């Protein structure tokens, strides 16, 4: 039985999510890249007009936020509504327990339930581990943009992924 669970984020998770956002920035060689604060996250994600949604992986015993996805809808004038995954992150010491797969699967389920036509995200080219992970999940690497690779699940791929 897994010692973590995946659930929708609540406002009290913001401190934990913010810590992980900073760790993710360090991974991307930009330790000073994060200009946000915990309060900005709370206002932008849990206020009157949320600009993003978030799901977290929570350690059942300690309550620690060991991973998260952060996502928001985007719009394609060709295919309509899609979901953009801005962050998928699992803290280093909780890796290799399929927490990442569980987070991605839960988000894909949400996209299928809510009628999104695509789930899209980007990976930096130097992030070989990330790219291997996404290739293994069956996502399509659509374009390379000077160090950024755009990955995608189509509607059919999403339906297959959650089987």
């Amino acid at each position, binding site marked *: 039985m897994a010692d973590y669970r995946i659930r929708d984020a609540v406002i009290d998770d913001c401190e934990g999510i913010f810590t992980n956002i900073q760790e993710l920035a360090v991974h991307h060689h930009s330790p000073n890249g994060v200009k946000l604060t915990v309060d900005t996250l709370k206002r932008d994600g849990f206020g009157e007009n949320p600009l993003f949604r978030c799901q977290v992986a929570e350690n059942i015993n300690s309550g620690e936020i060991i991973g998260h996805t952060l996502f928001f809808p985007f*719009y394609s004038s060709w295919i309509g509504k899609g979901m953009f995954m801005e962050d998928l992150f699992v803290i280093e010491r909780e890796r290799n327990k399929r927490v990442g797969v569980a987070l991605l699967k839960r988000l894909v389920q949400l996209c299928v339930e809510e009628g999104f036509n695509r789930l899209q995200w980007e990976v930096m080219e130097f992030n070989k581990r990330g790219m291997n992970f996404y290739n293994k999940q069956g996502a399509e690497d659509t374009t390379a943009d000077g160090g950024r690779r755009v990955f995608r699940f189509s509607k059919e791929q999403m339906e297959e992924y959650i089987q």
Partner: protein
Amino acid sequence: MSDYRIREARVEDCEEILRLIQELAEFEKMLKDCHMTVETLRKDGFGSNPLFRCLVVQSLNSDGSESSGLIGYCIFYYIYSTWEGKCIYMEDLYVTPTSRHKGIGHATLKKLSQICVEEGCKRLQWAVLDWNSIAIDFYNKSGATNLSEKEGWIFYRFDEDSLKAFAKN
């Protein structure tokens, strides 16, 4: 007196917006990938939870009244950067070929930049096809940064400072 007006789209504009979306898709040689319909545009853009916003360019008669048909449009929506916060992504910017070289594209981009500044957005971001040299020249002249190019899509961005400069200019 200008012979066009840039304004927020209304639900009645959807037929015309779709016509221009298809014109742009044809220009990008990807018309077969465009599955948009008027019903989807209406539901997604003008329902209770709009998924996008749209500016349209309306041509004006000599007496200042709106003539039928649109000559340009711009679709955009909020995105979120976990490093900087609220940003806007420009999905489409298009002016019909017969209305070009009047500064309409520039005026529309400027209007969108003003919206970004007014709403406290940290970035305005968009993509261009790498063979679209007219668009690339246009965006380079605007002062936006060409983030990078490898193949296919090129991503552009105005950061906070260049947004303010462009919006004011």
